[in-house]
Protein backbone atom coordinates (compact mmCIF):
# COMPACT_ATOMS: atom_id res chain seq x y z
CA UNK A 1 0.00 0.00 0.00
CA UNK A 2 1.51 3.31 -1.10
CA UNK A 3 -0.19 6.30 0.41
CA UNK A 4 0.69 9.71 1.70
CA UNK A 5 -0.34 9.06 5.27
CA UNK A 6 0.93 8.63 8.76
CA UNK A 7 -0.98 6.31 11.10
CA UNK A 8 -3.85 4.58 9.20
CA UNK A 9 -6.08 5.16 12.25
CA UNK A 10 -5.44 8.88 11.93
CA UNK A 11 -6.16 8.97 8.20
CA UNK A 12 -9.64 10.47 8.56
CA UNK A 13 -8.92 12.74 11.56
CA UNK A 14 -5.76 14.17 9.97
CA UNK A 15 -7.56 14.83 6.72
CA UNK A 16 -10.31 16.63 8.63
CA UNK A 17 -7.81 18.65 10.58
CA UNK A 18 -6.21 19.60 7.26
CA UNK A 19 -9.53 20.85 5.94
CA UNK A 20 -10.06 22.96 9.01
CA UNK A 21 -6.58 24.47 8.78
CA UNK A 22 -7.02 25.16 5.06
CA UNK A 23 -10.28 27.03 5.68
CA UNK A 24 -9.79 29.23 8.72
CA UNK A 25 -12.87 31.14 9.75
CA UNK A 26 -15.20 29.16 7.51
CA UNK A 27 -14.76 25.49 8.51
CA UNK A 28 -14.67 23.99 11.98
CA UNK A 29 -13.65 20.45 12.87
CA UNK A 30 -15.18 18.70 15.89
CA UNK A 31 -12.95 15.63 16.44
CA UNK A 32 -15.27 13.89 18.91
CA UNK A 33 -17.86 13.24 16.19
CA UNK A 34 -15.81 13.32 12.97
CA UNK A 35 -17.78 16.47 12.25
CA UNK A 36 -16.70 19.03 9.69
CA UNK A 37 -19.05 22.01 9.91
CA UNK A 38 -19.56 25.56 8.81
CA UNK A 39 -17.95 27.76 11.41
CA UNK A 40 -21.03 30.00 11.38
CA UNK A 41 -23.59 27.18 11.75
CA UNK A 42 -26.20 26.73 13.01
CA UNK A 43 -28.07 29.67 11.58
CA UNK A 44 -31.46 30.05 13.31
CA UNK A 45 -33.04 31.35 10.10
CA UNK A 46 -32.02 28.37 8.02
CA UNK A 47 -32.58 24.64 8.05
CA UNK A 48 -29.30 22.89 8.85
CA UNK A 49 -28.24 20.22 6.36
CA UNK A 50 -26.14 17.25 7.48
CA UNK A 51 -24.72 14.36 5.49
CA UNK A 52 -22.91 11.27 6.72
CA UNK A 53 -21.73 8.19 4.79
CA UNK A 54 -18.26 6.71 4.95
CA UNK A 55 -15.01 8.53 4.36
CA UNK A 56 -12.89 7.83 1.30
CA UNK A 57 -15.31 9.52 -1.10
CA UNK A 58 -13.76 12.97 -0.87
CA UNK A 59 -14.69 15.66 -1.82
CA UNK A 60 -17.98 14.01 -0.78
CA UNK A 61 -19.00 15.10 1.76
CA UNK A 62 -16.65 16.87 4.17
CA UNK A 63 -15.33 19.13 1.41
CA UNK A 64 -18.75 20.28 0.26
CA UNK A 65 -19.55 21.84 3.62
CA UNK A 66 -20.06 25.58 3.35
CA UNK A 67 -22.37 28.40 2.41
CA UNK A 68 -24.98 27.12 -0.03
CA UNK A 69 -24.14 23.46 0.49
CA UNK A 70 -23.93 21.35 3.69
CA UNK A 71 -23.85 22.76 7.20
CA UNK A 72 -22.00 19.70 8.37
CA UNK A 73 -20.74 16.27 7.41
CA UNK A 74 -20.03 13.55 9.97
CA UNK A 75 -18.67 10.55 8.08
CA UNK A 76 -17.55 7.28 9.55
CA UNK A 77 -14.14 5.81 8.93
CA UNK A 78 -13.11 4.93 5.38
CA UNK A 79 -16.03 3.14 3.71
CA UNK A 80 -17.89 2.74 7.02
CA UNK A 81 -21.18 4.37 7.86
CA UNK A 82 -20.98 6.89 10.70
CA UNK A 83 -21.79 5.48 14.11
CA UNK A 84 -25.20 6.64 15.18
CA UNK A 85 -23.99 8.95 17.90
CA UNK A 86 -21.86 10.94 15.44
CA UNK A 87 -25.11 11.67 13.65
CA UNK A 88 -27.00 12.42 16.85
CA UNK A 89 -24.38 14.69 18.35
CA UNK A 90 -23.58 16.44 15.07
CA UNK A 91 -27.26 17.11 14.56
CA UNK A 92 -27.57 18.50 18.06
CA UNK A 93 -24.61 20.81 17.49
CA UNK A 94 -26.18 22.00 14.24
CA UNK A 95 -29.74 22.09 15.52
CA UNK A 96 -31.78 25.01 14.21
CA UNK A 97 -35.31 26.18 15.02
CA UNK A 98 -36.08 25.57 11.36
CA UNK A 99 -35.06 21.93 11.71
CA UNK A 100 -32.40 19.54 10.47
CA UNK A 101 -32.27 17.88 7.08
CA UNK A 102 -30.32 14.64 6.76
CA UNK A 103 -29.15 13.58 3.33
CA UNK A 104 -28.34 9.89 3.18
CA UNK A 105 -26.88 7.80 0.37
CA UNK A 106 -28.94 4.66 0.21
CA UNK A 107 -26.51 2.16 1.69
CA UNK A 108 -27.73 -0.15 4.45
CA UNK A 109 -25.19 0.98 7.02
CA UNK A 110 -25.77 4.68 6.36
CA UNK A 111 -29.53 4.25 6.38
CA UNK A 112 -29.49 2.40 9.66
CA UNK A 113 -27.27 4.92 11.44
CA UNK A 114 -29.34 7.83 10.27
CA UNK A 115 -32.68 6.18 10.98
CA UNK A 116 -31.63 5.29 14.50
CA UNK A 117 -30.24 8.75 15.03
CA UNK A 118 -33.50 10.24 13.89
CA UNK A 119 -35.39 8.20 16.44
CA UNK A 120 -33.00 9.35 19.15
CA UNK A 121 -33.26 12.96 18.03
CA UNK A 122 -37.04 12.74 17.90
CA UNK A 123 -37.00 11.63 21.51
CA UNK A 124 -34.90 14.66 22.36
CA UNK A 125 -37.25 17.00 20.54
CA UNK A 126 -34.94 17.76 17.59
CA UNK A 127 -36.88 18.04 14.34
CA UNK A 128 -35.22 15.93 11.65
CA UNK A 129 -36.30 14.90 8.19
CA UNK A 130 -34.38 12.79 5.73
CA UNK A 131 -33.76 12.58 2.02
CA UNK A 132 -32.46 9.31 0.63
CA UNK A 133 -30.40 9.43 -2.55
CA UNK A 134 -30.51 6.34 -4.80
CA UNK A 135 -29.29 7.42 -8.21
CA UNK A 136 -27.21 4.38 -9.17
CA UNK A 137 -28.88 2.42 -11.97
CA UNK A 138 -26.17 -0.26 -12.07
CA UNK A 139 -27.69 -2.68 -9.63
CA UNK A 140 -31.31 -2.84 -10.64
CA UNK A 141 -32.12 -5.86 -8.61
CA UNK A 142 -32.66 -5.17 -4.95
CA UNK A 143 -31.58 -8.67 -3.86
CA UNK A 144 -28.03 -7.66 -3.18
CA UNK A 145 -28.79 -4.22 -1.83
CA UNK A 146 -31.92 -2.88 -0.30
CA UNK A 147 -32.91 -0.59 -3.11
CA UNK A 148 -30.43 1.18 -5.32
CA UNK A 149 -27.24 2.77 -4.17
CA UNK A 150 -26.64 6.48 -3.74
CA UNK A 151 -23.55 7.71 -5.57
CA UNK A 152 -22.16 10.87 -7.20
CA UNK A 153 -25.61 12.26 -8.00
CA UNK A 154 -25.90 13.25 -4.35
CA UNK A 155 -23.90 16.35 -5.30
CA UNK A 156 -26.93 17.71 -7.16
CA UNK A 157 -29.25 17.00 -4.25
CA UNK A 158 -26.92 18.81 -1.86
CA UNK A 159 -26.46 21.72 -4.25
CA UNK A 160 -30.18 22.20 -4.76
CA UNK A 161 -31.31 21.91 -1.15
CA UNK A 162 -28.25 23.84 0.00
CA UNK A 163 -29.17 26.77 -2.19
CA UNK A 164 -32.85 26.60 -1.26
CA UNK A 165 -32.04 26.42 2.45
CA UNK A 166 -29.85 29.48 2.08
CA UNK A 167 -32.85 31.25 0.54
CA UNK A 168 -34.99 30.36 3.53
CA UNK A 169 -36.93 27.27 2.43
CA UNK A 170 -38.70 25.28 5.13
CA UNK A 171 -37.76 21.74 6.11
CA UNK A 172 -40.78 20.31 4.29
CA UNK A 173 -40.00 22.29 1.17
CA UNK A 174 -36.44 20.97 1.24
CA UNK A 175 -37.63 17.38 1.59
CA UNK A 176 -39.90 17.87 -1.42
CA UNK A 177 -37.09 19.48 -3.37
CA UNK A 178 -34.63 16.74 -2.46
CA UNK A 179 -37.06 14.06 -3.58
CA UNK A 180 -37.60 15.92 -6.80
CA UNK A 181 -33.89 16.14 -7.57
CA UNK A 182 -33.38 12.50 -6.66
CA UNK A 183 -36.23 11.46 -8.94
CA UNK A 184 -34.50 13.21 -11.83
CA UNK A 185 -31.04 11.73 -11.21
CA UNK A 186 -29.48 8.66 -12.77
CA UNK A 187 -25.87 7.49 -12.42
CA UNK A 188 -23.65 4.60 -13.29
CA UNK A 189 -19.98 3.92 -12.55
CA UNK A 190 -17.14 1.70 -13.74
CA UNK A 191 -13.71 0.85 -12.36
CA UNK A 192 -10.37 0.25 -14.05
CA UNK A 193 -8.66 -0.63 -10.77
CA UNK A 194 -9.49 -1.42 -7.16
CA UNK A 195 -8.52 0.72 -4.20
CA UNK A 196 -6.95 0.18 -0.80
CA UNK A 197 -8.54 1.39 2.44
CA UNK A 198 -5.72 2.61 4.70
CA UNK A 199 -6.62 0.40 7.65
CA UNK A 200 -7.01 -2.68 5.47
CA UNK A 201 -3.73 -2.25 3.63
CA UNK A 202 -4.79 -4.50 0.74
CA UNK A 203 -6.89 -3.71 -2.34
CA UNK A 204 -10.56 -4.51 -1.80
CA UNK A 205 -10.60 -6.13 -5.20
CA UNK A 206 -8.24 -6.49 -8.12
CA UNK A 207 -8.86 -6.45 -11.84
CA UNK A 208 -6.73 -8.00 -14.54
CA UNK A 209 -4.85 -5.70 -16.90
CA UNK A 210 -7.64 -6.13 -19.49
CA UNK A 211 -10.64 -6.13 -17.14
CA UNK A 212 -13.06 -3.53 -15.87
CA UNK A 213 -15.87 -3.67 -13.33
CA UNK A 214 -18.96 -2.27 -15.00
CA UNK A 215 -21.45 -0.71 -12.60
CA UNK A 216 -19.09 -0.71 -9.63
CA UNK A 217 -20.29 0.74 -6.33
CA UNK A 218 -18.41 3.52 -4.59
CA UNK A 219 -16.84 1.11 -2.11
CA UNK A 220 -15.77 -1.26 -4.83
CA UNK A 221 -18.87 -3.44 -4.48
CA UNK A 222 -19.53 -5.53 -7.56
CA UNK A 223 -21.59 -4.01 -10.31
CA UNK A 224 -23.30 -5.62 -13.25
CA UNK A 225 -20.42 -7.52 -14.75
CA UNK A 226 -16.72 -7.89 -14.99
CA UNK A 227 -15.89 -7.12 -18.61
CA UNK A 228 -13.03 -6.80 -21.01
CA UNK A 229 -11.45 -3.36 -21.21
CA UNK A 230 -12.88 -1.52 -24.21
CA UNK A 231 -12.48 1.92 -25.72
CA UNK A 232 -13.67 4.94 -23.76
CA UNK A 233 -16.48 5.41 -26.26
CA UNK A 234 -17.71 1.83 -25.97
CA UNK A 235 -17.60 1.96 -22.19
CA UNK A 236 -19.43 5.27 -22.10
CA UNK A 237 -22.02 4.04 -24.61
CA UNK A 238 -22.90 1.08 -22.44
CA UNK A 239 -23.27 3.22 -19.34
CA UNK A 240 -25.28 5.87 -21.11
CA UNK A 241 -27.61 3.25 -22.52
CA UNK A 242 -28.16 1.88 -19.01
CA UNK A 243 -28.97 5.34 -17.73
CA UNK A 244 -31.25 6.37 -20.57
CA UNK A 245 -33.27 3.14 -20.64
CA UNK A 246 -33.38 2.80 -16.87
CA UNK A 247 -36.74 2.06 -15.34
CA UNK A 248 -36.56 2.56 -11.64
CA UNK A 249 -38.34 -0.09 -9.56
CA UNK A 250 -41.43 1.23 -7.82
CA UNK A 251 -40.90 0.53 -4.10
CA UNK A 252 -42.92 -2.37 -2.75
CA UNK A 253 -44.05 -3.70 -6.09
CA UNK A 254 -42.79 -5.51 -9.14
CA UNK A 255 -43.48 -2.56 -11.40
CA UNK A 256 -41.06 -0.04 -12.76
CA UNK A 257 -41.23 3.63 -13.61
CA UNK A 258 -40.85 4.77 -17.19
CA UNK A 259 -37.45 6.06 -18.37
CA UNK A 260 -37.14 9.74 -17.47
CA UNK A 261 -34.95 11.25 -20.19
CA UNK A 262 -36.55 12.19 -23.48
CA UNK A 263 -35.84 14.16 -26.60
CA UNK A 264 -36.11 17.83 -25.80
CA UNK A 265 -35.04 17.45 -22.20
CA UNK A 266 -32.28 19.55 -20.71
CA UNK A 267 -29.78 17.87 -18.42
CA UNK A 268 -26.83 18.55 -16.20
CA UNK A 269 -24.11 16.07 -17.23
CA UNK A 270 -21.51 14.97 -14.72
CA UNK A 271 -18.44 12.90 -15.52
CA UNK A 272 -17.10 12.05 -12.09
CA UNK A 273 -13.60 10.72 -11.51
CA UNK A 274 -13.28 7.95 -8.92
CA UNK A 275 -9.97 9.26 -7.57
CA UNK A 276 -7.17 7.80 -9.66
CA UNK A 277 -8.27 8.79 -13.14
CA UNK A 278 -6.76 11.97 -14.58
CA UNK A 279 -9.08 14.72 -15.69
CA UNK A 280 -7.79 14.38 -19.28
CA UNK A 281 -9.52 11.00 -19.53
CA UNK A 282 -12.69 12.40 -17.99
CA UNK A 283 -12.89 15.00 -20.76
CA UNK A 284 -12.43 12.32 -23.42
CA UNK A 285 -15.48 10.58 -21.95
CA UNK A 286 -17.32 13.86 -21.54
CA UNK A 287 -16.91 14.79 -25.21
CA UNK A 288 -18.35 11.51 -26.39
CA UNK A 289 -21.29 11.42 -23.99
CA UNK A 290 -22.11 15.02 -24.83
CA UNK A 291 -22.28 14.24 -28.52
CA UNK A 292 -24.30 11.07 -27.96
CA UNK A 293 -26.86 12.94 -25.91
CA UNK A 294 -27.14 15.75 -28.42
CA UNK A 295 -27.71 13.13 -31.13
CA UNK A 296 -30.70 11.94 -29.15
CA UNK A 297 -32.04 15.47 -28.85
CA UNK A 298 -31.14 15.77 -25.18
CA UNK A 299 -29.56 19.13 -24.50
CA UNK A 300 -26.62 19.52 -22.12
CA UNK A 301 -27.52 22.49 -20.01
CA UNK A 302 -24.32 22.42 -17.93
CA UNK A 303 -21.24 20.22 -17.50
CA UNK A 304 -19.63 18.91 -14.34
CA UNK A 305 -16.30 17.23 -15.06
CA UNK A 306 -14.02 16.34 -12.19
CA UNK A 307 -14.05 14.53 -8.88
CA UNK A 308 -17.27 14.74 -6.90
CA UNK A 309 -17.63 11.36 -5.22
CA UNK A 310 -14.59 9.11 -5.26
CA UNK A 311 -13.42 5.74 -3.97
CA UNK A 312 -9.98 6.61 -2.61
CA UNK A 313 -7.46 6.15 -5.45
CA UNK A 314 -9.66 3.92 -7.62
CA UNK A 315 -9.25 4.54 -11.36
CA UNK A 316 -12.57 4.80 -13.13
CA UNK A 317 -15.46 7.15 -13.52
CA UNK A 318 -19.19 7.52 -13.24
CA UNK A 319 -21.71 9.28 -15.42
CA UNK A 320 -24.60 11.18 -13.85
CA UNK A 321 -27.47 12.85 -15.64
CA UNK A 322 -29.85 15.21 -13.86
CA UNK A 323 -32.88 16.46 -15.72
CA UNK A 324 -33.18 20.17 -15.02
CA UNK A 325 -35.97 22.71 -15.10
CA UNK A 326 -35.95 26.43 -14.36
CA UNK A 327 -36.07 25.89 -10.62
CA UNK A 328 -33.11 23.49 -10.62
CA UNK A 329 -31.09 25.63 -13.01
CA UNK A 330 -31.39 28.54 -10.65
CA UNK A 331 -30.49 26.46 -7.62
CA UNK A 332 -27.56 24.72 -9.33
CA UNK A 333 -25.98 28.03 -10.34
CA UNK A 334 -26.63 29.88 -7.09
CA UNK A 335 -23.42 30.92 -5.34
CA UNK A 336 -21.80 28.50 -2.90
CA UNK A 337 -18.50 28.46 -1.03
CA UNK A 338 -16.86 25.21 -0.04
CA UNK A 339 -13.34 23.93 0.69
CA UNK A 340 -13.09 22.33 -2.72
CA UNK A 341 -12.30 25.23 -5.01
CA UNK A 342 -9.67 26.25 -7.54
CA UNK A 343 -8.80 29.78 -6.47
Amino acid at each position, binding site marked *: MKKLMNDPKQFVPEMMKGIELANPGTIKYVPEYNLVMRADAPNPNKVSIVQGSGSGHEPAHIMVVGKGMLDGACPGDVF*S*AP*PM*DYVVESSKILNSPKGILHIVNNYSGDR*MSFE*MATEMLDMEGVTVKTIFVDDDVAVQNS*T*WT*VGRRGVAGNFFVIKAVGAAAEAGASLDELVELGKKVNSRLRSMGMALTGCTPPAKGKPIFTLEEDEIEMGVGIHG*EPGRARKKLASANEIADEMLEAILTDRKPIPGGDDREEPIFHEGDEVALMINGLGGTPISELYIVYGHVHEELEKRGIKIWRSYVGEYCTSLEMAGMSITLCKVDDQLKELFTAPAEIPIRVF
Partner: protein
Amino acid sequence: MSDSTLAVTERVVRTIADVALENEFYFAELDGVVGDGDFGLSLANGFRKLMDEWDTLDRSSPGTFLKKVSMIITSRVGGVSGAIWGTGFMRAGFAAGDKAELTADDVIAMLRAAEEGMKKRGQSDVGDKTLLDGFIPAVDELERVLKSGGSTQEALDAAAVKAREQTEVIKPWIAKRGRAAYTGERSMDTYDAGSIAVAVMAETIAASWPEISNP
Protein backbone atom coordinates in the same frame (compact mmCIF):
# COMPACT_ATOMS: atom_id res chain seq x y z
CA MET B 1 -39.90 -13.95 38.19
CA SER B 2 -39.28 -13.72 41.84
CA ASP B 3 -36.48 -11.13 41.92
CA SER B 4 -37.30 -7.54 40.87
CA THR B 5 -37.84 -7.15 37.13
CA LEU B 6 -35.08 -4.58 36.89
CA ALA B 7 -32.54 -6.93 38.45
CA VAL B 8 -33.59 -9.75 36.11
CA THR B 9 -33.41 -7.45 33.12
CA GLU B 10 -29.95 -6.39 34.15
CA ARG B 11 -28.78 -9.97 34.48
CA VAL B 12 -30.24 -10.99 31.09
CA VAL B 13 -28.41 -8.13 29.41
CA ARG B 14 -25.28 -9.02 31.30
CA THR B 15 -25.51 -12.62 30.10
CA ILE B 16 -25.87 -11.48 26.49
CA ALA B 17 -22.88 -9.20 26.91
CA ASP B 18 -20.79 -12.02 28.37
CA VAL B 19 -21.60 -14.22 25.39
CA ALA B 20 -20.67 -11.44 22.95
CA LEU B 21 -17.36 -10.81 24.72
CA GLU B 22 -16.41 -14.45 25.17
CA ASN B 23 -17.17 -15.29 21.55
CA GLU B 24 -15.69 -12.21 19.92
CA PHE B 25 -13.25 -14.14 17.73
CA TYR B 26 -15.49 -17.13 17.14
CA PHE B 27 -18.25 -14.91 15.75
CA ALA B 28 -15.75 -12.89 13.75
CA GLU B 29 -14.41 -16.08 12.23
CA LEU B 30 -17.89 -17.21 11.24
CA ASP B 31 -18.59 -13.84 9.60
CA GLY B 32 -15.23 -14.05 7.86
CA VAL B 33 -16.19 -17.13 5.84
CA VAL B 34 -18.40 -15.20 3.44
CA GLY B 35 -18.97 -11.84 5.16
CA ASP B 36 -16.30 -9.29 5.99
CA GLY B 37 -15.34 -10.71 9.37
CA ASP B 38 -16.25 -7.70 11.46
CA PHE B 39 -19.36 -9.06 13.18
CA GLY B 40 -17.78 -10.53 16.30
CA LEU B 41 -15.59 -7.48 16.79
CA SER B 42 -18.37 -4.95 16.26
CA LEU B 43 -20.66 -6.73 18.64
CA ALA B 44 -17.95 -7.07 21.28
CA ASN B 45 -16.97 -3.42 20.91
CA GLY B 46 -20.53 -2.40 21.64
CA PHE B 47 -20.87 -4.62 24.68
CA ARG B 48 -17.41 -3.72 25.94
CA LYS B 49 -18.45 -0.10 25.96
CA LEU B 50 -21.62 -1.16 27.79
CA MET B 51 -19.56 -2.87 30.47
CA ASP B 52 -17.38 0.25 30.84
CA GLU B 53 -20.43 2.37 31.57
CA TRP B 54 -22.41 -0.35 33.33
CA ASP B 55 -22.42 1.26 36.75
CA THR B 56 -23.50 4.68 35.54
CA LEU B 57 -26.62 3.59 33.59
CA ASP B 58 -29.99 5.15 34.33
CA ARG B 59 -31.96 2.40 36.08
CA SER B 60 -35.21 4.23 36.83
CA SER B 61 -37.16 1.43 35.12
CA PRO B 62 -36.39 -1.70 33.05
CA GLY B 63 -37.52 0.21 29.95
CA THR B 64 -35.20 3.15 30.61
CA PHE B 65 -32.38 0.77 31.33
CA LEU B 66 -32.85 -1.03 27.99
CA LYS B 67 -32.97 2.28 26.11
CA LYS B 68 -29.64 3.29 27.67
CA VAL B 69 -28.19 -0.10 26.72
CA SER B 70 -29.33 0.55 23.18
CA MET B 71 -27.74 3.97 23.02
CA ILE B 72 -24.39 2.67 24.20
CA ILE B 73 -24.37 -0.26 21.81
CA THR B 74 -25.23 1.85 18.81
CA SER B 75 -22.85 4.65 19.73
CA ARG B 76 -19.46 4.19 18.15
CA VAL B 77 -20.44 0.89 16.52
CA GLY B 78 -21.05 1.70 12.88
CA GLY B 79 -22.80 -0.47 10.34
CA VAL B 80 -25.39 -3.18 10.58
CA SER B 81 -24.68 -4.74 13.94
CA GLY B 82 -24.80 -1.57 15.99
CA ALA B 83 -28.04 -0.62 14.35
CA ILE B 84 -29.79 -4.02 14.45
CA TRP B 85 -28.87 -4.88 18.01
CA GLY B 86 -29.36 -1.36 19.25
CA THR B 87 -32.79 -1.24 17.65
CA GLY B 88 -33.73 -4.51 19.32
CA PHE B 89 -32.88 -3.17 22.76
CA MET B 90 -34.43 0.21 22.08
CA ARG B 91 -37.75 -1.17 20.86
CA ALA B 92 -37.93 -3.55 23.77
CA GLY B 93 -37.28 -0.60 26.06
CA PHE B 94 -39.98 1.51 24.42
CA ALA B 95 -42.46 -1.36 24.69
CA ALA B 96 -41.72 -1.67 28.39
CA GLY B 97 -42.58 1.99 28.86
CA ASP B 98 -42.00 3.08 32.45
CA LYS B 99 -43.53 0.03 34.08
CA ALA B 100 -41.54 -1.13 37.11
CA GLU B 101 -42.68 -4.75 36.89
CA LEU B 102 -43.21 -6.73 33.70
CA THR B 103 -45.53 -9.69 33.12
CA ALA B 104 -44.86 -12.57 30.74
CA ASP B 105 -47.20 -10.87 28.27
CA ASP B 106 -45.20 -7.67 28.59
CA VAL B 107 -42.01 -9.57 27.83
CA ILE B 108 -43.56 -11.20 24.75
CA ALA B 109 -44.74 -7.77 23.60
CA MET B 110 -41.23 -6.35 24.14
CA LEU B 111 -39.66 -9.16 22.11
CA ARG B 112 -42.20 -8.66 19.33
CA ALA B 113 -41.45 -4.93 19.32
CA ALA B 114 -37.74 -5.71 19.08
CA GLU B 115 -38.51 -8.09 16.21
CA GLU B 116 -40.55 -5.48 14.33
CA GLY B 117 -37.88 -2.85 14.90
CA MET B 118 -35.06 -5.05 13.64
CA LYS B 119 -37.08 -6.09 10.57
CA LYS B 120 -37.76 -2.50 9.72
CA ARG B 121 -34.24 -1.34 10.46
CA GLY B 122 -32.69 -4.12 8.44
CA GLN B 123 -35.31 -4.02 5.69
CA SER B 124 -35.26 -7.75 6.22
CA ASP B 125 -37.48 -10.64 7.29
CA VAL B 126 -37.32 -14.36 7.94
CA GLY B 127 -35.90 -16.10 4.89
CA ASP B 128 -33.10 -13.63 4.33
CA LYS B 129 -30.60 -15.80 6.26
CA THR B 130 -29.96 -13.35 9.07
CA LEU B 131 -30.23 -13.48 12.83
CA LEU B 132 -33.95 -12.88 12.38
CA ASP B 133 -34.21 -16.48 11.19
CA GLY B 134 -33.03 -17.50 14.62
CA PHE B 135 -34.61 -14.80 16.73
CA ILE B 136 -38.18 -14.85 15.41
CA PRO B 137 -38.79 -18.62 15.51
CA ALA B 138 -37.25 -18.68 18.98
CA VAL B 139 -39.64 -15.97 20.19
CA ASP B 140 -42.52 -17.89 18.56
CA GLU B 141 -41.52 -20.94 20.54
CA LEU B 142 -41.17 -18.99 23.78
CA GLU B 143 -44.64 -17.54 23.33
CA ARG B 144 -46.15 -20.93 22.41
CA VAL B 145 -44.80 -22.69 25.50
CA LEU B 146 -45.71 -19.82 27.85
CA LYS B 147 -49.25 -19.50 26.39
CA SER B 148 -49.77 -23.25 26.70
CA GLY B 149 -48.96 -23.06 30.44
CA GLY B 150 -45.27 -23.98 30.44
CA SER B 151 -42.81 -22.49 32.93
CA THR B 152 -40.37 -19.76 32.03
CA GLN B 153 -37.55 -22.31 32.18
CA GLU B 154 -39.45 -24.64 29.84
CA ALA B 155 -40.16 -21.80 27.47
CA LEU B 156 -36.54 -20.64 27.43
CA ASP B 157 -35.25 -24.16 26.86
CA ALA B 158 -37.62 -24.65 23.93
CA ALA B 159 -36.60 -21.28 22.44
CA ALA B 160 -32.91 -22.14 22.74
CA VAL B 161 -33.39 -25.50 21.02
CA LYS B 162 -35.31 -23.77 18.24
CA ALA B 163 -32.65 -21.08 17.78
CA ARG B 164 -29.96 -23.73 17.48
CA GLU B 165 -32.04 -25.80 15.01
CA GLN B 166 -32.55 -22.76 12.88
CA THR B 167 -28.82 -22.23 12.41
CA GLU B 168 -28.80 -25.58 10.60
CA VAL B 169 -32.06 -24.95 8.74
CA ILE B 170 -30.74 -21.76 7.15
CA LYS B 171 -27.20 -22.99 6.56
CA PRO B 172 -27.88 -24.09 2.95
CA TRP B 173 -29.58 -20.80 2.06
CA ILE B 174 -28.22 -17.88 0.06
CA ALA B 175 -27.74 -14.76 2.21
CA LYS B 176 -29.93 -11.88 1.12
CA ARG B 177 -28.82 -9.19 3.57
CA GLY B 178 -25.54 -7.85 4.92
CA ARG B 179 -22.13 -8.17 3.39
CA ALA B 180 -22.49 -11.95 3.11
CA ALA B 181 -25.14 -11.29 0.47
CA TYR B 182 -22.51 -9.70 -1.76
CA THR B 183 -20.95 -13.10 -2.26
CA GLY B 184 -24.16 -14.55 -3.68
CA GLU B 185 -24.04 -18.31 -4.11
CA ARG B 186 -20.81 -18.59 -2.17
CA SER B 187 -22.87 -17.92 0.96
CA MET B 188 -24.59 -21.30 0.53
CA ASP B 189 -23.63 -24.01 3.04
CA THR B 190 -22.10 -21.59 5.50
CA TYR B 191 -23.37 -20.66 8.96
CA ASP B 192 -24.83 -17.21 9.42
CA ALA B 193 -22.79 -15.51 12.14
CA GLY B 194 -25.70 -13.49 13.49
CA SER B 195 -28.01 -16.47 14.05
CA ILE B 196 -25.23 -18.50 15.65
CA ALA B 197 -24.82 -15.62 18.10
CA VAL B 198 -28.56 -15.67 18.79
CA ALA B 199 -28.44 -19.42 19.43
CA VAL B 200 -25.49 -19.20 21.82
CA MET B 201 -27.19 -16.36 23.70
CA ALA B 202 -30.52 -18.18 23.94
CA GLU B 203 -28.76 -21.31 25.18
CA THR B 204 -26.76 -19.40 27.73
CA ILE B 205 -29.79 -17.54 29.07
CA ALA B 206 -31.76 -20.79 29.34
CA ALA B 207 -28.88 -22.55 31.06
CA SER B 208 -28.32 -19.71 33.55
CA TRP B 209 -31.98 -18.94 34.15
CA PRO B 210 -31.94 -20.34 37.69
CA GLU B 211 -29.22 -17.82 38.69
CA ILE B 212 -30.68 -15.05 36.58
CA SER B 213 -34.13 -15.26 38.11
CA ASN B 214 -33.08 -16.22 41.61
CA PRO B 215 -29.47 -15.43 42.31
